[in-house]
């Protein structure tokens, strides 16, 4: 991903400081646009990371192989009832 963003937590911290700057000072339009664009970039990165994980359950077997878990583990009561309704 973006090499200027270290990780999720760093992105959040930077976004926080950008929001503060935007809210505090009456910056020139050009500067605030630049900040805004950076903010969008950071926010996108965070959302991408949030969505990144896949809904998946795997079993790591004795041979060190990852296999999808049996159905019984993949479904909880909630999803079952959702399917029903």
């Amino acid at each position, binding site marked *: 991903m973006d090499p200027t963003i270290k990780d999720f937590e760093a992105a959040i911290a930077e976004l926080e400081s950008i*929001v503060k700057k935007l809210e505090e000072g009456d910056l020139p339009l050009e500067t605030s646009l630049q900040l805004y664009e950076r903010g969008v970039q950071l926010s996108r990165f965070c959302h991408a990371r*949030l969505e990144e994980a896949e809904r*998946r*359950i795997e079993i790591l077997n004795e041979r060190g192989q990852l296999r999808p878990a049996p159905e019984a583990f993949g479904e909880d009561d909630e999803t079952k009832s959702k399917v029903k309704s």
Partner: protein
Amino acid sequence: MRSLFDMPFEEPEPERLEPESPAPRRRILTVSELTGKVRMLLEDRFTDVWVEGELSNCRVWNTGHMYFTLKDGGAQIRGVMFRSAVRTLRFKAQDGLRVVARGRLTVYDAKGEYQILCEHLEPEGLGALQLAFDQLKRRLSSEGLFDERRKRRLPALPRKIGVVTSLEGAAVRDIIQVLRRRYPNAHIVIRPTRVQGEGAALDIARAMAAIGKVAGIDVVIVGRGGGSIEDLWAFNEEVTARAIAGCPVPTISAVGHETDVTIADFVADLRAPTPSAAAEMVVARRDDFCARLDQLAHRVNATMLTRLHRCESRLRTLEARSGYTGVRGRMAMRGRYVADLAHALGRAVRARMAARERSYQTMRLSLETFDLRRRLARIRSRLIEVDGRLSVASAQTRHRADRQLRSAAARLEALSPLAVLGRGYAVCWNAERTAIIRDAAAVAAGDRVRVTLARGELACEVKKS
């Protein structure tokens, strides 16, 4: 058998099996047969007994079986424990130890002794386990394995969540259920392991090592559901503790219930009271971050929205009192210079508007592609609407400026003195060319005047006025 309480009221009856009494059918048993009958009786009757007493004559033979005597003040019973059961003992069985034994009765035919076949033996009050627990805890603690500064923070956003537990237990289901509910797209990797019984500790240790090697795992939950202290014992063993300490990513121990405390709890980065709670802990930090992110994104957009509104109103102002009206009036009198100026101004205004439009375009693009969730959709649609109005406004302004420029230029053309001269008129100036002579009375005979024609100029002398 008779009760003692019967005695005061009745004389004891003569025994029915008196040797002298005639036995119509005398059945003689061999010792083996009798012993067999006794054994059947005992084995049938006492299949599962618990008995407490003090250990004595306790010996483990080289076959691995253990023989002992269990006694109290008034009686004693022989006992035997087979090798497979002896191996599950977590304390050293010694003479003098008060124990509770569980097993079934049988008879050792060769000696005519009845004995208890012991399947389970535990020290009274579980003192031995407590002792083992305390000893290991002290040792690991002195090595610094429980130090606060060893504890790692959980990741805000674990890519994969490792779970080390039994597939049969309730723990794995509890964990999955919580994660499914609170973190629907969680990627869970389960490393099944036995969590109780012979070799469970080693199994857990191997599972920890294996899951630590899976790429992308950022946190590991290790544990099991509730059970007796015996059931939970694998989590009190050294090999388990060391494997948890050696895990390359943060660990959460989740063994048994709230009140169960194991060595694993001390050595893990975080202790969860239950497996469900462990899953909650994994999700909690993520939830915090999600809320913060949403809030920040909202604030960024709100700020930019205000900014846009301000720009919009400035544009309106510009539109309303743009200097065009004045320029038009002045242009007629000031000739080409003014026309050029007006043209330059028009170009500048247009350039500024184009630049502004470009920034709006950039802004609109960012805003449009800025994918916030549903809660921000409303703000975005408002932005797009404002932006639409802005584009229309700037386009209109530009149009009007163009129109005005064109008409001004046409009128300028019509009013230009050069155009008038082209039609045959001439302009008569005084000699200094400081004033136009409009009245013949303004000059006298002999005065010099200058006459401007469409092409060129004449120097003239007035003959008569």
